[in-house]
């Protein structure tokens, strides 16, 4: 996606299981619906006394997608393809004009 502020390309990063888009130019950050809440929830789980956890492994960024694409792009939480079972209707679509 493109940065809504400076229109440079945005790259997807995985932070503790939450997908974050960051602009390659102005470093601005875009959060999808629910992602801020997910981050807040994660933050509240941190005990002040707990030792710092090792950083989460960097997820392989999803390939770029257009602005009109599905909002869940780049997420493990999204897409209609979830799991090992393709939707039957899409299975048919793969084979037809």
């Amino acid at each position, binding site marked *: 996606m493109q940065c809504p502020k400076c229109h440079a390309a945005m790259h997807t990063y995985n932070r503790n299981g939450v997908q974050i888009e960051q602009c390659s130019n102005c470093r601005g950050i875009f959060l999808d619906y629910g992602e801020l809440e997910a981050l807040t929830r994660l933050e509240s789980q941190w005990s002040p006394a707990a030792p710092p956890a090792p950083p989460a492994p960097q997820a392989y960024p999803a390939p770029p997608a257009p602005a009109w694409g*599905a909002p869940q792009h780049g997420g493990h939480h999204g897409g209609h393809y979830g799991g090992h079972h393709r939707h039957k209707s*899409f299975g048919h679509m793969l*084979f037809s*004009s």
Partner: protein
Amino acid sequence: MSPHPSLAARVRQAVHPGRDLPGCACETVVLADRPDATVVRHGSLVGKAHAPGTDPEALAARLRVAARLPGVLLPPVATAPEGQPRPHTLWPYGTPVDPGDPDAAPWEAAGTLLARLHRTPAPPGLPPMRGPAKAADAVHRLRRTVGPGHPATAPILAAWSTLAPWARAEAPLPASALCHGDLHLGQLVRHPAPDGPWHLIDVDDLGTGVPAWDLARPAAWYACGLLPPDEWARFLGAYRSAGGPAVPADGDPWPALDVPARALTVQTAASSVAKAAAEDRSLDEVEQALVDACARMGRLPGAQAPNPPT
């Protein structure tokens, strides 16, 4: 029993030349029977009855391309179609992708074959590829058979209106490459059966045009959240590795893919909604994802995209 006895008889005769027609014990199997194509198999050969009104000269020009590119397109048995009003053609039987196992889809082969097709100079006199015409047909059918009463019609038509005229078949197609025109997983077969190399089949829509169109159906599926990112990456990566000219060798491919992928999203949404309406049912999750993508297209600023680079 074949819905096209003359087609079945022709295939049978080609498989067993010189034998009395009723005297063979092999089975004739109908592989497809749609308004635009009937396909029957008998032994090692397949006969196709093309759509009524198919231009025999244009079809012959397309068959000659297939005959000249045997490593890319399945070569026909003969390059002269026969019969009217539905011309018949004969092909060797090839093993298709198993529809019950789309995870085994040969995405790398599809990308590589398209790159090789797109890198082949188009012979003079070849007609334009029919991708935009088919998208326009689907939108026309939606208008005619479903109409404004369905909640999906307005967003689909709004998305259609964002497309450049060439992508709606309302202006000449920028002709920069030899294109297949209708790529999907049903357009790949292994030849010789059962485990030869993959080939592209179905030259009915083949012609000169914008090569990104051939990448646009998988691109649309990926953009709509239907095709997993890794399968899209395998397809696009193979296309790029084989030197395909439709997108830059690296970087963001979407400036080149955007218009065709929008068109294929609109076409697929329009066909899906028409089908759901004909079956008097609501849209399923996949069909709704396509309509939702159309709605987002209609809301984007600067929707009238320029022509792709030629």
